[in-house]
C-alpha cells in the first residue's frame, strides 16, 4: 500500500503547469465574458429594448411549484397574459417554498430581460435586492397572492380585501359554534404576509365586536403549509385544549389536513372547522358533515388580473399610483388603491348547496 508518493521534479512541474493553465483559463473565460459583455450587455441590461417592438414577455414566479392552488392561479395568469397581448409567458419557481429560493429565478429573469415579473413572495424582504436589480434592468414588478415589502414592487394584486377575508371567517366560525366558546387558528408559515394580516384583522374583530364577546381565541399554531405537520398540529390543538369549539384555518393545506383529522376522530361534528379551502379538496368533508361552510375566491381571477396589471405597467399606462385604473380584460376596470393594492373581488362562500358547482 503506497502512502504519499514522492513527486519527481517532472511531476511537480507538470502539476504547476496545469494549475496555471486552469487559472489562466478561468481568467480568459472571465475576460471573454467582459469582452462579450460589451456586446451582449445591452441584452442583459436593458429589458426595455424588447418592449419597443411590442414583444413583451412576462414571467410568473409563484411561492412554489406543484401546488394545486397555485396551479389554478397560474392557469388564470397564463390565460390573462395571452389576452393582454404578451408575446411570451413563462412560469418558473422553486420546488420548495423557502425564502431565498426565489432569488436565483429573479436573477435569471433580470438577465433574460423579461418585461414583467409577477411574484408571490415567500418572504417579503429576502427577495428585495434581487427585485431591485430587476427593476434597474427595466422590469416591472407585480406582486400577487403574497406581498413583498411595498418598496420592492409596483403594484400588489390582492385576491380580496384582507379585512373582508378575516371578517368572513370570524363570522362563519361564530355562526358554527353558536356564538360562544374557545377557538384556535391553524395557519401556514409564521411570517407569510397574507396570513399575518388576516390573523391581525381577526384578532381585532374578536376584540372589538360585542357580538363576539363570548368567543375566546386560545391558540395560534402553524402547519407550515405541510400536510403532515398541519395534521399533527390539529391533533395537538385538540389535546392541548379539550374544550375547543372551533378552528379557523385560513390556508387550503391547513383546512384540508384539519378536516381529514377531525373526520376520522371522535371530534367530528363536535368541533367546527372553517377557513379558506379548495372546493375539490373539501368536497368529501362537506358531504360527510365535518365542515359546514368555508370561503375562498376564484384563484384564476387573481392570475388573470395580475397579467393585465403587468401589461398596463409595461405599456406605461399606469405607474402604480393610487387612483390609477386599467382594464382587466373580461373582468372590467380595476383601480389601484392605497399602497398600490389592487383588489380582485369579493370572496365566495362554499357549502353543501353550491360546492358541486365549482371545479378547482
Amino acid at each position, binding site marked *: 500500500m503506497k502512502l504519499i508518493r514522492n513527486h519527481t521534479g517532472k511531476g511537480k512541474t507538470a502539476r504547476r503547469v496545469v494549475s496555471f493553465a486552469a487559472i489562466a483559463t478561468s481568467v480568459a473565460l472571465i475576460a471573454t465574458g467582459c469582452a462579450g459583455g460589451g456586446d451582449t450587455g445591452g441584452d442583459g441590461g436593458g429589458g426595455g429594448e424588447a418592449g419597443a417592438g411590442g414583444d413583451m414577455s412576462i414571467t410568473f414566479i409563484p411561492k412554489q411549484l*406543484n401546488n394545486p392552488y397555485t396551479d389554478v392561479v397560474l392557469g388564470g395568469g397564463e390565460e390573462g397574459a395571452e389576452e393582454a397581448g404578451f408575446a411570451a409567458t413563462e412560469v418558473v419557481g422553486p*420546488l420548495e417554498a423557502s425564502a431565498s429560493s426565489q432569488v436565483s429565478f429573479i436573477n435569471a429573469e433580470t438577465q433574460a430581460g423579461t418585461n414583467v415579473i409577477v411574484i408571490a413572495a415567500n418572504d417579503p424582504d429576502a427577495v428585495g435586492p434581487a427585485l431591485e436589480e430587476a427593476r434597474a434592468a427595466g422590469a416591472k414588478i407585480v406582486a400577487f397572492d403574497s406581498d413583498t415589502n411595498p418598496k420592492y414592487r409596483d403594484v400588489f394584486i390582492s385576491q380580496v380585501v384582507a379585512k373582508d377575508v378575516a371578517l368572513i371567517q370570524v363570522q362563519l366560525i361564530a355562526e358554527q359554534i353558536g356564538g360562544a366558546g374557545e377557538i384556535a387558528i391553524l395557519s401556514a408559515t409564521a411570517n407569510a404576509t397574507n396570513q399575518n394580516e388576516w390573523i391581525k384583522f381577526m384578532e381585532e374583530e374578536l376584540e372589538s365586536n360585542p357580538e363576539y364577546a363570548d368567543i375566546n381565541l386560545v391558540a395560534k399554531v402553524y402547519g407550515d403549509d405541510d400536510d403532515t405537520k398541519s395534521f399533527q398540529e390539529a391533533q*395537538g390543538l*385538540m*389535546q392541548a385544549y379539550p374544550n375547543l369549539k372551533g378552528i379557523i384555518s385560513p390556508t387550503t393545506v391547513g383546512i384540508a389536513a384539519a378536516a381529514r383529522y377531525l373526520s376520522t376522530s371522535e371530534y367530528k361534528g363536535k368541533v367546527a372547522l372553517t377557513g379558506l379551502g379548495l372546493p375539490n*379538496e373539501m368536497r368529501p368533508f362537506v358531504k360527510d358533515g365535518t365542515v359546514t361552510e368555508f370561503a375562498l375566491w376564484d384563484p384564476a381571477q387573481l392570475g388573470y388580473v395580475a397579467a393585465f396589471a403587468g401589461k398596463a405597467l409595461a405599456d406605461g399606462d399606469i405607474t402604480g399610483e393610487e387612483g390609477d385604473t386599467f382594464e382587466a380584460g373580461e373582468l372590467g376596470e380595476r383601480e389601484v388603491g392605497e399602497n398600490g393594492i389592487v383588489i380582485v373581488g369579493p370572496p365566495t362562500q362554499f357549502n353543501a348547496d353550491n360546492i358541486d358547482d365549482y371545479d378547482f
Partner: protein
Amino acid sequence: MTQTPATQNPAGTTPAGATSTGSQPPSPRPTNTRNAGRSVGSFLKLRELPVTAALIVLVVVTYAANPLFLGPQGIKDLLLNATIIIILAVGQALVIITRNVDLSVGSMLGLVAFGTGTLFQVMPDIPIIAAFGVGMLFGAALGAVNGLLVTVAKVPALVITLGTLYIYRGLNNAWAGGTQYFADDRPAAFGSLSVDTVLGFPLITLIAILVVIAVALYMMGTRPGRDLYAIGSDPDAARLFGIPIGRRVFLVFLANGVLAGLAGVLYASRFNSVGANTGLGMELDVVAAAVVGGVAIFGGSGTVVGAAIGAVLLTTITSALTALRVDKFWQQAIVGVLILAAIIIDRLASIRTARKLRLSEARDV
C-alpha cells in the same frame, strides 16, 4: 471427592454455590439467584433499554401533566402517527446493520405514494390488496436499483443513495407536476383503512407491528439474518467465512425498498394529499429513529425492535410537546440531544464490552 459433571464448567470457573461433593445436590437457591442476577444483568445491558426507558418516562410525564394525552383518541393518534416511521425504521435498521445507509427512503415513499394515487385514478375498482402488492413491487424495484449499484459497483451506500435521493425526487416531480391526489380521489374503503380499528387498535398499526415481529424473528432466528450482523461487524471476516456478502446486501436493499413501498401505500391511505413533494426530508428522521433505537451506525449491532421503539419515541415527542404546550421549537433540538445521547451510551457500552473481552482474554492466558 468426585465432581459431578454438571458442576464442571469448561471455562474453569465453577458456579457459585455448587459444591464439589457428589453426595449433596447443590442448594438450588443460590444458583437461582445467580441465574436471576445474570438475567437482570443482561436485561440491563439490553441495547433497547435506554430508548424504552426514555419512552416510558416521556409518556408518564406527559400523562401526568395532561391526562388527555393517553385518552382513547390520544393513544390512537400516537399509534397512527408512528406507524409509517416504524415501518421505514425497520427497513433502515436492516440496512444500517450491514454497515450501509439508505438516504433515498423519503423519495421512494413519495414515488410509491403518488403511484398509488395514480393507480386508483386509473383503475378505481382495483382490489386494495392488489394496490398493496403493486406498491410493494414498485418499492422493491426502487430498492433493487440501490442494491445493484452498491453491490456491483462497490461504491459506498452513502453516495449511491444520496444520488438516488435526488433522482427519485426528480422523477416524482417530473411525473406528478402540480397534480395532487386528494382524499376524494381514492376509494373510501382504502382511506378508511387507516381509521379502522381492530379491538380498538388501529389496523395499520397492527400491520406495522406484524412487520416488526416478522423481521425481528428473521434476524434472530435464521442463518441469513444472523449473517447480516456478521457483515456489519467485520466484512472481511465475513467474506473469509464464506458469507455471500453481495447477495445478502442486495436483498437487504430490496427489503428496504419493499418496506418503503408498504409505507408509501399506507401514507396514501392516511394523509390528505399525495403529490410531488411527499416524503421530502423523511430520511433523516428515519435514520435518527434507528440510531436512537440502539442501531449502531457502524453496523453489526442493534435490533429492529429497538429501531421501532426509537420511531415511536420520536413521533411521541412531537405530540407530547404539543400536549404539554411546550414551544414546538424545542422539538428538533431535543431530537438532536437524543441522538447524541444514544450514540454516547452505545459507545460507553462497547467500551465496557471491549474491556471485559480484554480482561477475560487476559485471564484465560
